[in-house]
């Protein structure tokens, strides 16, 4: 190499070293910020979900334990009224019927907020109950497949139940599907919750990009809190399939 080439080569080496150092610094700081933002994000989501679930539990308990007995007492008082007037008897009968409806509705709301079956008998039974109720109310055939026993923490059970609820509601409200299949299985220390419908589908990425899919974000957040992965495959007119994979 002549002098000019040597000078050029040395300059090139210096430039490469400088660029290398800058790249290294850029990568290290990016990783540090990502880790910090990830930790904060997870803490925030966990706090939000915990607050939401605690509040739901409290409202469900208040409705069921305080308003329920109070309404029953009112009904008892009304039925104890002594009258022979046919007009009054008719009013008492109607009021008693309304109170019965209110009590039934209260139980339903309380159960939607925090199902007793979920807390007492676990996820599998709660999902079966929820599906039965949905089929009766919305006439959407839902097939639930779960062949294994599920031993999960209560937090995971609640999150998975909410995910099933959200997906079923989305299917009923938007998909115009004639069939929904929900499958829960455990393979190699991982739990898979998979659903598929034959509805009209949607463009997942544009929904997420437009920020209009709040329900979808909710599904993602709950999966993240459990340390899992959430996938959605949806094609217009070809149905929607969701997969939630969580470590056990």
């Amino acid at each position, binding site marked *: 190499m002549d002098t000019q*080439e040597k000078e050029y080569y040395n300059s090139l080496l210096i430039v490469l070293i400088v660029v*290398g150092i800058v790249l290294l610094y850029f990568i290290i700081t990016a990783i540090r910020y990502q880790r910090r933002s990830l930790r904060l994000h997870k803490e925030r989501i966990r706090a939000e979900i915990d607050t939401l679930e605690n509040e739901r539990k409290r409202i469900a308990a208040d409705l069921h334990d305080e308003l329920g007995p109070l309404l029953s007492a009112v009904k008892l008082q009304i039925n104890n009224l002594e009258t022979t007037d046919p007009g009054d008897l008719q009013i008492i009968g109607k009021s008693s019927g309304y109170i019965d409806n209110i009590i039934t509705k209260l139980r339903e709301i309380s159960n939607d907020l925090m199902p007793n079956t979920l807390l007492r008998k676990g996820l599998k039974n709660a999902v079966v109950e929820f599906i039965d109720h949905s089929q009766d109310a919305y006439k959407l055939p839902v097939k639930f497949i779960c062949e294994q026993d599920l031993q999960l923490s209560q937090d995971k059970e609640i999150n998975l139940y909410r995910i099933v609820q959200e997906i079923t509601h989305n299917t009923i409200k938007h998909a115009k599907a004639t069939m929904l*299949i929900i*499958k829960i299985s455990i393979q190699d220390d991982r739990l898979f919750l998979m659903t*598929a419908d*034959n509805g009209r589908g949607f463009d997942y*990425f544009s929904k997420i990009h437009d920020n209009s899919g709040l329900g979808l974000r909710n599904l993602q957040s709950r999966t993240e809190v459990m340390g899992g992965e959430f*996938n959605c*495959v949806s094609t217009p007119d070809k149905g929607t399939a969701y997969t939630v994979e969580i470590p056990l």
Partner: protein
Amino acid sequence: MDSTTFFFLLSLSILFAAILGVIKFRKMDPAYHPFVYYCCLAVLVEILVYILLLNDMKYIVGTVYNFFALAEFYLLTRMFHNWGLFKRKKNTFTGIIVLSFLLFACTLYIRGYNKINYFSKIVNSFALIFFSISAFNRMIQNERNNIFKNAKFWICIGMVIFFTYYILVNTEQLSFLNIKRTKAFEDKVWLINAYSNVFVNLLYAVAVIWIPRKKNIITLF
């Protein structure tokens, strides 16, 4: 050992990524398939170029590298498209590929078929660096798991390092800069390229290890 064999052996470091990619191919997320094709193509091109050089057919090497550069840009851009970098708009992806092809064709016509098309390659390298940085930034914002276990992280870093070094090292090859070069100087410059290539190939191998599995979706309808 002569310099040709030495450079060839260094370039074979891409074999790790290619072999791992082929082994995992059927079970991996299809969005990463173009990356595995790219690694395999790189292995084939390195072997082909070595055979050509051993048989004194240096005049074809430029053509092979030129078409590899074109295929490389297509496959890597396709990978970014699969990752959703262009908002999944096929027109944007097609537009980029058509532009790149037109530039390639024009520069090839001007410079001749047998010479390595550095101008087109450097422009493509800039584009790939920008794509990698954009994908990297999106990943930093959206990734909710350990970033070191993310294949995109290793691929993007590898590409930024490789193409940045490629541009810095090969800018002197552009004819309008008119730099005179001796064989000794070219060998030393190639050595920088070769070492950065080995480093990046190892990053690619790590990336292939972390390529996610195919998504588990029920196909009941």
